[in-house]
């Protein structure tokens, strides 16, 4: 038999289908390690709901004999371990999704590993779960990893928790063992804000209290695991709270129809409801709720619909249509919890892409206020976040976005960070509140503007960004250019590594994170000077493309001139005026660009100068000045 069908499927298929087409859906996550019997539990749920086919079962029997840990008995864990390589190693290293269904509900189980590299996977699996099953080995009680899993469950805002005390057969189904574990866990759960935990005594291996109450635990009067999963009420929560619909796609088949397609991620909506479009702030009424199956009288959280509004308002992807009397806040600076998911650590100050709802913005993350030790829940000082680390940080965006606190709405408060160069998803975060600073710092409108100052100086402002290896000749060329511009009567200022590092940036070292911050500050200072109408010459190794791009984006069109001073490593090292390469080669200097730290050459610089020695620096400087003339910076 393939599914938990009872007899109805055999006797009256129409009645069976009518019943099953009304089933609900529950998504849950299981937390625990292989040692707790987690894979065994999931395998058991699949097996008991008759979802294991004979050919799968035959493969399972063969696998159990070959690599099983149950002495040739059926090893349910093998049913759920996915990729071949992992199966051989006996660990799962990613999130796998499993499906089973009963008479009353369909279930989607996020199965994540419990070993050390778990955080990224568990956070991913928990983000879509309504409920978490936290497994405990009855012989071991509440362990460090139990606390870790529970903290992540609470962080991700899962409100329904089952404490599955497993392997009770190995302690003789002893009620006192169960009670002690429950008491221990409950006091801990309260500390981290998890309430309403439902404890269930289990033996996943033998099937006790899985689908039905076990005769081995007469002292237990609660539901079996499956009974609880079938009946726990979760759907209504989504429909509580104010209406939210992030616009995914503007539907415009012809001039007569203009609809806004998106998922309802909060509350409910009816035709006639007053709604506000954020961030623009326009109010209007809902005219129609359009679906392919006809217009709806009401749409609730969880549905994907298309709204037609009463007034013509400019709305595009990324906007949120929300209840007019309770709209989301709009802000560009936030405090958030950030979970780091990439091997390359977080670089505070570097611009990342942030996706929230259907909106993508550029974001920079400040140095973390603290990191959270997920084992002890202690707060520790942190300069950055590495893979699987969690911290609390301020984050600022290049434009305001609509949001709700994550605690209020996961879909309007959760975000991912994307690396601009690799396109990898490197972090996930939960917004808590907007920083007051965003509301209070207003741009001062000024009468004397950039154009007025430029007219007075007789040249356009610009930032000449000289990048290249140490010893490539950047500063030499920059000096010559400045001298020439000065002689022509233009107002200039030269920023270089040495004058900045002795003052403004003397608190920074040479780690990757500090290098990013160094360049961020330089770029901001240069922007102010450009605003003051100077021609700024910045001479910095600036090895990373992302930071040079950040500097470019701070300035107006045509104001940023990237000059790649390219000597090649050999020529630069041969010069070595400051003896730095020699030190780096001896290992006395670490993180030295070109030796043990990478240099990412510009892909499309405005100027690419060959400074290997074949052309004298004076000629290179003349090339730069000529470029400024032809670009119209100087007359």
């Amino acid at each position, binding site marked *: 038999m393939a599914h938990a069908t009872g007899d109805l499927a055999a006797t009256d298929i129409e009645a069976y289908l009518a019943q099953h087409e009304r089933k609900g859906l529950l998504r849950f996550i299981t937390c625990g390690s292989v040692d707790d019997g987690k894979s065994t539990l999931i395998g058991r749920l699949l097996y008991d709901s008759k979802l294991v086919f004979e050919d799968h079962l035959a493969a399972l029997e063969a696998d159990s004999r070959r690599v099983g840990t149950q002495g040739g008995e059926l090893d349910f864990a093998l049913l*759920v371990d996915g990729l071949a390589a992992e199966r051989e190693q006996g660990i799962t290293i990613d999130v796998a*999704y499993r499906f089973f269904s009963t008479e009353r509900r369909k279930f989607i189980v996020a199965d994540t590993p419990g070993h050390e590299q778990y955080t990224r996977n568990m956070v991913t699996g928990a983000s*879509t779960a309504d409920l978490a099953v936290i497994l405990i080995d009855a012989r071991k009680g509440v362990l460090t990893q139990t606390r870790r899993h529970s903290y992540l469950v609470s962080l991700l805002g899962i409100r329904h928790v089952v404490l599955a005390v497993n392997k009770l057969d190995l302690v003789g189904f002893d009620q006192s063992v169960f009670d002690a574990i429950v008491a221990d866990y409950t006091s801990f759960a309260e500390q981290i804000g998890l309430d309403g935990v439902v404890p269930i005594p289990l033996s996943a291996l033998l099937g006790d209290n899985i689908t039905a109450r076990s005769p081995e635990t007469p002292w237990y009067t609660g539901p079996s695991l499956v009974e609880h999963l079938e009946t726990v009420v979760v759907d209504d929560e989504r429909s509580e709270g104010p209406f939210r619909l992030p616009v995914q796609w503007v539907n415009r088949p012809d001039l007569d129809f203009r609809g806004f397609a998106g998922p309802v991620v909060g509350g409910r909506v009816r035709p006639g409801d007053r709604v506000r479009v954020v961030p623009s702030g326009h109010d209007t009424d809902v005219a129609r709720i359009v679906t392919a199956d006809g217009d709806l009288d009401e749409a609730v959280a969880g549905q994907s619909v298309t709204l037609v509004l009463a007034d013509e308002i400019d709305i595009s992807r990324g906007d949120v249509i929300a209840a007019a009397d309770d709209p989301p806040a709009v802000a560009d600076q936030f405090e958030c919890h950030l979970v780091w998911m990439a091997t390359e650590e977080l670089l505070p100050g570097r611009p990342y892409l942030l*996706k929230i709802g259907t909106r993508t913005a550029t974001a920079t993350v400040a140095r973390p206020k603290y990191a959270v030790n997920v084992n002890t829940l202690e707060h520790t000082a942190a300069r950055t976040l590495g893979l699987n680390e969690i911290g609390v940080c301020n984050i600022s965006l290049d434009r305001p976005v609509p949001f709700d606190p994550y605690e209020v709405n996961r879909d309007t408060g959760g975000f991912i960070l994307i690396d601009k160069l690799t396109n990898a998803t490197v972090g996930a975060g939960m917004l808590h509140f907007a920083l007051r600073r965003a509301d209070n710092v207003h741009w001062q409108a000024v009468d004397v503007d950039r154009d007025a100052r430029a007219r007075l100086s007789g040249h356009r402002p610009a930032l000449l960004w000289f990048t290249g290896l140490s010893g490539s000749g950047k500063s030499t060329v920059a000096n010559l250019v400045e001298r020439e511009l000065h002689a022509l009567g233009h107002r200039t200022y030269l920023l270089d590594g040495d004058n900045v590092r002795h003052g403004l940036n003397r608190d920074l070292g040479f780690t990757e994170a500090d290098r990013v911050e160094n360049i961020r500050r330089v770029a901001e200072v240069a922007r102010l000077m450009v605003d003051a109408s100077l021609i700024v010459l910045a001479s910095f190794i600036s090895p990373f493309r992302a930071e040079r791009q950040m500097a470019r984006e701070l300035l107006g069109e045509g104001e940023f001139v990237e000059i790649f001073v390219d000597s090649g490593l050999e020529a630069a090292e041969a010069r070595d005026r400051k003896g730095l390469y020699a030190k780096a080669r001896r290992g006395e200097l670490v993180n030295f660009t070109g030796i043990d730290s990478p240099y990412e050459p510009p892909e499309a610089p405005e100027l690419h100068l060959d400074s290997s020695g074949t052309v004298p620096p004076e000629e290179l400087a003349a090339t730069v000045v000529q470029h400024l003339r032809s670009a119209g910076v100087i007359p």
Partner: protein
Amino acid sequence: MGTLTHLQRLEAESIHIMREAVSESERPVMLYSVGKDSSVMLRLALKAFHPSLPPFPLLHVDTTWKFQAMYEFRDAIPGLTGMELIVHRNPECIERGINPFDHGSAVHTDMWKTEGLKQALDAHGFDLAFGGGRRDEEQSRAKERVFSIRSSQHRWDPKAQRPELWKLYNARTHLGESVRVFPLSNWTELDVWQYIHAEDIPIVPLYLAAPRPVVERDGVWIMVDDDRMPVDPAEVEERQVRFRTLGCYPLTGAVESTATTLTGIIQEMLLATSSERQGRVIDHDASGSMERKKQEGYF
């Protein structure tokens, strides 16, 4: 209204996935294999963009060895939906006459389907392709992402897949990379059948039992769909059979069945004892074979 049913929630999720994919790509396409999963995916696409037509064409990577009934069904689709249908056949396969009888199922599938798919995606410059894959189909699929990034060589790197949280999908690619998107990731075979039933979605008649000419090959019933199959006329029998999955007819096993209605086949499936893919010859080589195929670019 009350709480949503599992089919309503699955439908809403698939629609959300399709709208995200279309919004975050330049040139999307939907792979259309003529099977039941494609039928469901197509219906969801028509719903997602209603009253507009889905803003992408359908692509059928043909092998010339599908069942005749599949070609008839496929050719009616543009007229029924108004959508464009692109059919691609690997010209090298045509030239060399690649077929499952002389070249074996592995070479046949690799050349027609895997290579054919890559050719079609490259030729049209599609940067995103919807596929009907489901996580419940096979063990290695359980960990597949909804948005799966492929290199410019169409390879799948299980170590470089992006975490997917909440409803947030990262579809950003570098030039030459592409994304495979699986809107049915969270559907099971039963969900697909229930949806077809609830929505009255047309499917290829081969899914329903009928008297058909078959021969036995390696313990599997194979339908003699045209005269290209080398058979001794004496070994052909007529049996009441149907197909649980549809592919190239020489590689698709039939099951004996009396189920001539949709509810009949759902009933048979509910009471079945072997999994859906068992009728497919390609999976049988070794445990983990699908995973290898996927790394090589098979959908």
